[in-house]
């Protein structure tokens, strides 16, 4: 696989790595005892970040120029990354037209945002943390753009997702910030699962996950078929770009500082999904059905988001829904087969939206105290529609009802089962469980005192079993044999019925219905 290449080309690998080096540098600096922190260190941090991203941008511009004169470089392989059995993943970049365009825009947007943040974040307590994460993010986005195989794309994808999580919860002492960050992250994990699925399917179809080979393989009839491979990737793209049905996370993501909102959700990360779709263009041509799906989803998202945007009462929310509407249009264009136009739209929208978001904090100053435009008449007249839009299409409520609450309820049931059944079977008291789980090591004597000494009480499954058998025999003799009026049997029925009633209460919950069905299919499939 080793390909000899002239030494300047070997440096290309450093373009997506440089921001990570800067992130590492800032991070180590923060952790170092007596290290950089506070206002004094701001200068060094900012410089490291700006230089790293700036050099990456210069490198990309150089590549762009070369591509202009000599044609795009295409795939570059720098060596093996992982190998196990037939799985071979190389360290490779795919420098084709969409990759170079996207990477340049990423580097430019990151540079601008970093420079903006130097002043905006000045004297913020999380200044260094912010810059480190932003550098991490810049690297991740560059990897998404330039990766030569699906796994490297996934790496960039995850790093971008993680840094988004870290910045949404930037104000980590606020409960809402933490909750929103978790929510956004978990929604994104759905997409990540889709991406992993897509990678596995691509490997099955092409025997490798290098992008050019995967595109090549789509020309022959493969197993699994192209639509299945694509379905996973598209799921990821829809989740990342917050299309229907992964609609609501992006509005929650605005919790972070404005520059991060600008670059993550306004400009770059939300576009990663759209970029993935453009990257998959050769595959998409083989599945008109999925293109139709993209078309419909994009259109619906665009309509819904632009309508929701009209009823928002703050600048950032209005902007984010407008962003979503544009993203929906980009998906629509991809579905219609206008991939070049979609790429152009993506770039133009990225830059414009970045500008808007960065300006958002100073709108009051710029526009004076002029009120926002009122909602259009047709919207103001329909109360139901207005309510629907105000609640953002009830998507959050729906997710809560269908996924979050049943899952939480199941978890609670499992905990009760653990406490009531498993712990008792193991002979542990509730108190011991609590001690163990809360790790109250400082007073171990209490534990010993509490559990020792009683010999007559059965402990553990077998101890209890013996004790139970004895009790049942005793009870049988006492109430059914000696006291045989039939009353005992009635009591037994009532006792058993009491237990069954508890089971019955669970069976009346739809989550157990779904669980039962799912279990059956797990067994038979």
């Amino acid at each position, binding site marked *: 696989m080793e390909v000899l290449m002239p030494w300047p080309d070997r440096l290309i690998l450093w373009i997506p790595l440089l921001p990570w080096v800067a992130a590492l540098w800032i991070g180590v600096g923060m952790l170092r005892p007596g290290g950089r922190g506070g206002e004094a260190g701001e200068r060094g941090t900012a410089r490291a970040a700006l230089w790293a991203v700036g050099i990456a941008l210069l490198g990309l511009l150089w590549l762009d120029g070369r591509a202009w004169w000599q044609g795009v470089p295409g795939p570059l392989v720098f060596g093996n990354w992982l190998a196990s059995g037939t799985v071979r993943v190389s360290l490779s970049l795919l420098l084709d037209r969409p990759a170079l365009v996207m990477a340049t825009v990423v580097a430019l947007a990151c540079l601008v945002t970093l420079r903006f943040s130097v002043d905006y974040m000045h004297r913020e307590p999380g200044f260094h943390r912010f810059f480190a994460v932003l550098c991490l993010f810049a690297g991740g986005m560059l990897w998404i753009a330039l990766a030569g195989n699906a796994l490297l794309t996934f790496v960039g994808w995850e790093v971008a997702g993680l840094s988004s999580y870290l910045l949404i919860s930037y104000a980590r002492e606020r409960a809402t910030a933490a909750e929103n960050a978790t929510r956004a992250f978990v929604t994104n994990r759905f997409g990540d699962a889709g991406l992993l699925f897509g990678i596995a399917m691509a490997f099955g179809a092409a025997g490798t996950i290098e992008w050019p080979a995967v595109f090549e393989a789509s020309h022959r009839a493969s197993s699994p078929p192209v639509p299945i491979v694509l379905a996973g990737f598209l799921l990821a793209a829809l989740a990342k770009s917050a299309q229907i049905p992964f609609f609501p996370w992006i509005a929650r993501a605005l919790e972070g500082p404005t520059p991060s909102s600008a670059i993550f959700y306004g400009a770059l990360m939300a576009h990663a999904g759209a970029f993935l779709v453009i990257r998959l263009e050769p595959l998409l041509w083989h599945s008109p059905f999925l293109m139709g799906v993209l078309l419909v989803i994009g259109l619906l998202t665009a309509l819904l988001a632009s309508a929701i945007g009209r009823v928002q009462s703050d600048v950032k929310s209005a902007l984010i829904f407008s962003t979503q509407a544009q993203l929906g249009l980009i998906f629509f264009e991809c579905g219609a087969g206008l991939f070049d136009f979609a790429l152009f739209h993506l770039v133009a929208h990225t830059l414009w939206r970045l500008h808007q978001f960065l300006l958002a904090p100073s709108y009051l100053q710029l526009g004076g105290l002029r009120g926002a435009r009122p909602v259009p008449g047709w919207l103001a007249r329909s109360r139901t529609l207005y309510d629907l839009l105000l609640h953002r299409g009830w998507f959050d409520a729906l997710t809560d009802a269908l996924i979050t609450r049943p899952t939480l309820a199941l978890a609670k049931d499992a905990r009760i089962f653990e406490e009531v059944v498993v712990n008792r079977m193991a002979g542990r008291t509730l108190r011991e469980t609590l001690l163990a789980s809360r790790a109250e090591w400082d007073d171990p004597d209490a534990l010993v005192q509490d559990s020792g000494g009683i010999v007559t009480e059965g402990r553990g499954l077998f101890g209890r079993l013996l004790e139970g058998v004895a009790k049942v025999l005793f009870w049988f003799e006492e109430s059914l044999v000696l006291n045989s009026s039939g009353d005992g049997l009635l009591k037994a*029925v*009532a006792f*058993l*019925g*009491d237990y*069954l*009633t508890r089971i*019955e209460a669970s*069976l*009346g*919950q*739809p989550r*157990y*219905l*779904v669980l*039962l*069905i799912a279990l*059956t*299919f797990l067994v*038979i*499939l």
Partner: protein
Amino acid sequence: MGVDAFLLGWVQLVPVVGAVALLFVRHVGLAWIIALGCTGGELLLAVRMLYRFDLHKEGWQWLQRLPVTDWLIQLAGADGITVFFVLLTAFLALLVVLYGGWVRHFQNLPRFFAVVLACEAALMGQFTTLDLMWFTLMATIHTFCIGYLFSAWSLSTDERTAIARYHQFMGTSLLLLLAATLMVGWNHAESHGGVWSFELPVLLQNERSPYLQSVIFYLLFYGLAIRLPIFPLHGWLPQVMEHGTVASAMVLLLGVKTGIYGIVRFLLPLFPDAVWRWHEYVITFATLGIFYSALLALVQKNLRRLLAYAVISHTGMLIIGLFSLHPHAFQGSLLLTGSFGLAITTLMLMAGIVHQRTQNMRLERLGGLFVPLPLIGLAFLVAALSVVGMPGTPGFDAVHLLLEAAIDRFGALVTVLAALGNVAAASCLLWAFQRAFLASPGAGAPAVATLARATGIETGLAALLIAVQLFSGFHADPWLTLVKQASQTLAAPYMERGERP
């Protein structure tokens, strides 16, 4: 002959016409005429079907095929089972109309009749169709009609959870049903150059891999099992029965019969390998379910909830019959389905009449009702005995056939268990009868003397139900003959699998 050729069409069309007409009627008298005319006419049509049905002819009778679109085809055909279910539905629908309008005096009567007729139409659509897609579509319509009936005429104040549960469970059931339907059609399209079909006669020719059979079997079976309902998928029924009105519960119970019908019509003939592979599991759960719900029925304090568990317990019995895969068992199960539908309807009606007087259904606050309401009590008792399988009720022959087939197929253990389960259910129903009608009234129960006696209508209704049950009990032979041919066709794929070691 003109009517007969299109008989199945008329059966479906009459209630639709009635329902649509009732939407525009405000006058209560006119509404009565339309509702009675339609349900009565429907009953006459069903009786005509019974007499014109050729008992010795194999295959489908009165076959008719009307493509609505490419993928939705109104394909109707009847065998003995169809006739049996159509007759039962027509009779019970008439009862619902009489009961809802005359005994309970529901609000907004024309609308109530319209929904009942719509339900009847959807049921008839399900019972006469041979097209799986049509069946699913009709099941959906039926579910929503019941949902509407349930929310618009509910009596209880905390019915909201019950309604939500109903929709959640039924929604799941419909989704599974739809998935199964689409997979069957897709499987056909795969082997026939992309042409989709959901028609039973066509689908019977298709080959399916065992793996695919298993998947579709479970999708379809669970879809139907939720509406039946079979333990442990029964969670919605007790809540719905406790909080819903009596009338909706009756229509609901008819819907329950569509589950049995779906199993008989589509599941058993289409997937013989999968049915054979999994039938022991189904039997195990059904047997467990009999005891589980009989026990729960014993500890219930609310009469309606108790009846719900009795239904679940007996569904277990029906399932044991169906999955014995034996011609006698099929005959027995089908007869039991009918007798059981009648009996439970009777029980619910009588409970409703009691509720109207006492305004509560808690057993400890009932008692001594036999004095003011003798015939109501008697009808309750007869229905309970029919559920138990007492000689002289239609349940007797059914249970007898069923147990005979079970011993043939599974040996003693399952049979003994099933019989014991039957005893358990007997005890819960008879005990309930004893507590509600015979025992001296508990604390807080209304004084027996103050309760209104049964009106003429109520007495007539009770007498009619007693008469029908006793008549069909002593004279069960025609029903058995009616479903005999179909049962044998149904059992054919399983007979050569031979005796079990």
